[in-house]
């Protein structure tokens, strides 16, 4: 199952100003893994995802999704941005935001209809947010907003999911709910890439991991490479995690 390469990144270098924030990144992510990207603040995790998704233009390197460029494979990819990247006081409802996940397949001008609404409601149900469907988004808690973003990506019904810190600021119950959804996606042979900060839970949640700090430190199966050595290389300080296994 893990022979197909879902995402391939070659020599990716990205800079906002002059100094590259990502330096010569090579990655091969097999299909069907649940992968964590770990690294300190400012390591370039969000930047890496944004470059793969074509939001940022890299100064060098290339990205391919199942062997083709991202532009050609858009429909296969869904994105959950960092929650703080939007203004939650925007005048709209939870359902409306989730419905935005269908805009890509609708294309220009065409409006969402009953079919799209049904998809959105199903996604809301999956993340346990159906009772809040008509809630103004500013009146949702942080964890609920995170679920809305997740539902919006689920609506896209993609093969590859990129999630930027989906566990940021959510309580234990929500975290379990979200991880269960992610595991279900993996079961359906989807590839899920998650920026993750809680190192303690990496072995429990993920089967693949990438260590990143401007450069790629390591990438591979959690059981092989999630060790103190790589953590120390990534975080710069002597790191000791007790891997509960």
């Amino acid at each position, binding site marked *: 199952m893990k022979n197909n390469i879902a995402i391939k990144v070659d020599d990716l270098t990205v800079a*906002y*100003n002059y100094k590259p924030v990502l330096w010569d990144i090579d990655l091969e992510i097999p299909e069907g893994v649940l992968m964590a990207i770990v690294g300190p603040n400012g390591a370039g995790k969000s930047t890496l995802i*944004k470059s793969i*998704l*074509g*939001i940022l233009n890299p100064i060098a390197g290339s990205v391919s999704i199942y062997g083709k460029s991202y*532009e050609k494979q*858009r429909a296969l*990819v869904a*994105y959950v*941005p960092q929650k703080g*990247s*939007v*203004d939650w006081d*925007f*005048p*709209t*409802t939870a359902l409306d*935001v989730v419905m*935005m996940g269908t*805009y*890509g397949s*609708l*294309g*220009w*001008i*065409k*409006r*969402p209809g009953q079919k799209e609404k049904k998809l959105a409601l199903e996604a809301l149900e999956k993340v346990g947010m159906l009772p809040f469907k008509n809630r*103004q988004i*500013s009146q949702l808690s942080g964890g609920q907003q995170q679920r809305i973003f997740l539902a919006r990506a689920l609506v896209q019904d993609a093969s590859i999911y990129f999630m930027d810190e989906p566990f940021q600021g959510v309580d234990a119950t929500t975290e379990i709910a979200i991880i269960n959804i992610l595991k279900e996606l993996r079961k359906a042979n989807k590839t899920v890439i998650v920026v993750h900060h809680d190192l303690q839970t990496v072995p429990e949640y993920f089967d693949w991991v990438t260590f990143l700090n401007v450069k790629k430190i390591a990438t591979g199966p959690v059981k092989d490479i999630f060790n103190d050595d790589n953590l120390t290389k990534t975080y710069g300080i002597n790191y000791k995690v007790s891997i509960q296994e």
Partner: protein
Amino acid sequence: MDITEYIKLVFTDYTLRTITLGTAILGAVTGMLGSFAVLRKQSLLGDAISHAALPGIAIAFLITGAKDSNILLLGALVSGLIGTFWIRGIISKTHLKSDTALGLILSLFFGFGMLLLTFIQKQPNANQAGLDKYLFGQAATLVESDVWLMSIVTGACLLVLLLFWKEFKILLFDADYTKTLGFNTKFIDILITTFIVLAIVLGLQTVGVVLMSAMLLAPAAAARQWTNSLGIMVFLAATFGAFSGVFGTAISASQNNLSTGPVIVIVAGVFVLISFIFSPSRGLLFKQIRFIKNRRDLQLHKTLSFMYHIAETHENISHPHAIKILNNFQGFTKGTLQKLVRKNYVKLEGSMWSLTTEGFKTASNLYNQQTENNE
């Protein structure tokens, strides 16, 4: 002229009707587009565009030597667009903050425009007088063709809004995500910005460079207070804008021809003020009322739950207790006790109180809720 006379005149007097119609349409289109500027947190954009338009007017005059308002506005449009795209360029190329870029372009273009205006004023040309009307606007100079032009732009704007509604909405909310879905965000952005520039340029003759941005912001800011739906917000902003135009014109015409532009802006400001105070969900007044009511309820609930704890210890929940024992409790007042009686939660007999069944039920619900919330 008083206001009733004015109303009669609007329907009979050609000039007044033209001006009223013009300001109403202008208010509607700027209000509509202003919603987008406000939601993108680009409040300064309108100010920058209108100031950037000034040198265009001056240059158009210098080239043609004529005061034909359409040619001057074309000049304004060109320099407004140049200013706008320079702003975008500065933001994306230099990593200056957007307000820095806006401020920079605003003052640069405005300064240059003023320089040209003073230069023109020194020219021995009888035509020059009146160019300064673009600074503060002069609604009285509106003619039918101006109103036609405004209507056409408004119609086109409406059409584009309807067509690209979904694209505008998603771009405003989450631009990066929009890009990942395959939409050309630059195109959407340029489309909306171009219409904002157009609307502003159209308003220069009426409201003027200095006050134009208020036409963009005030109706939208007011509208945001009343709704949580983008569609309704845009509609309300257009309505507030149109009414600002109509009322402003009426007031200025009936009060000895006060300058129309500033009056329109003040009326729009009144809309904002009223909205900030009286909007049910976001307004200051209702917030205050809710706050006071919550505090009162809390007081009541505190007393009730205290009584509940006492009553709980007895088998008969309606067993009477002395009011005196409530004195140990700080939050209790005669007023709250009276209110509890009125709500039929508590019965008073002489110096004794007892909970009613209803009171007991309410209190126990309260208590459960509280413990739930604490978990």
